[in-house]
């Protein structure tokens, strides 16, 4: 499991710890190296890559590692963007839409309820739709927006995989997390890696990250699309 680190990332330690707790082997992918090495899945963690200057993710998307991540994603490799990582993936064009400032102009640091809307993604394959998870959020620019056409596409293709039960930030259509057309690239504002231990107040992140780790353990480009092509498949 590769965890991308930009100057200004600050959730890479949490992400690596969570991966370890779940039995994975985390390793750092430094932003200046144009490779994903031989990792079987990639996490783009939260933080303030390049200081969030210009826009969150706007500079990070040009880091050498992102070209490698894009290639990895194009081959079907599982990629997960959390918080700032989600912003980076939208700026890089790996996920549609954008994240703007929260409605109410407040930085939000709280635990929210999320509803699983689809299991057809590398992050939610082990979860029944309708399941409610309690996961922390920690962001200022988490208000998801997209053109009406993009939203219609996301909805019709069942690519909104997580919604807020009680929308905290003004996100369009209560969107908390979406996936790519190939369902192997996922972005969400909440932090599942911070909900993997009883002491942290919730263990609801485990099922999400477990799905993601399992996706990485499949022979990626062949198995994932087929396995996720039907919502009636047996969750692993």
């Amino acid at each position, binding site marked *: 499991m590769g965890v991308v680190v930009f100057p200004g990332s600050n959730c890479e330690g949490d992400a690596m710890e969570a991966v370890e707790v779940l039995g994975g082997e985390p390793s750092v992918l430094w932003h200046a190296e144009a490779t994903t090495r031989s990792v079987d899945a990639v996490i783009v963690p939260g933080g303030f890559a390049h200081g969030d200057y*210009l*826009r969150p993710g*706007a500079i990070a998307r*040009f880091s050498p590692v992102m070209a490698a991540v894009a290639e990895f994603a194009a081959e079907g490799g599982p990629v997960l963007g959390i918080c700032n990582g989600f912003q980076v993936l*939208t*700026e890089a064009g790996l996920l*549609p*839409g*954008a994240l*703007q*400032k*929260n*409605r*109410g*102009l407040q930085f939000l640091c709280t635990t929210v309820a999320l509803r699983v809307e689809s299991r057809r993604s590398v992050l939610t394959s082990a979860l029944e739709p309708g399941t409610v998870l309690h996961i922390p959020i920690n962001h200022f620019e988490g*208000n998801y*927006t*997209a*053109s009406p056409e993009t939203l219609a596409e996301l909805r019709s293709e069942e690519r909104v995989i997580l919604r807020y039960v009680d929308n905290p930030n*003004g996100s369009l259509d209560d969107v908390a997390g979406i996936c790519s057309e190939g369902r192997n690239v996922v972005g969400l504002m909440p932090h599942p890696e911070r909900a993997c231990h009883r002491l942290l107040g919730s263990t609801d992140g485990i099922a999400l990250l477990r799905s993601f780790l399992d996706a990485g353990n499949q022979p990626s480009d062949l198995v994932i699309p087929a396995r996720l092509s039907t919502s009636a498949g047996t969750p692993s």
Partner: protein
Amino acid sequence: MHFDVLVEVRLRPGIADPQGATIERALPALGFHEVTGVSVGKAIRFRVEASDEAEAQHRVDELCRRFLANPVIEDVETTLAVTSGADAAATR
């Protein structure tokens, strides 16, 4: 030739502007009851070298499209002016 460029980045119509709204809400307390329609954007200034204005404009548009603005949420307005004599000499 050198051109002084001003790129104004603003939120597209329909995109929430909580900064503008917050500023506008604060104005009556300062006695500015007559001010409405506040919006907050960014101004980015730089200098560009090109053989003529058309080429400069083309490069600036490309830069805006790829980097300075996010077309999902932002519009840009660009202003180019030939860099004045003394400034142009300093640039060289």
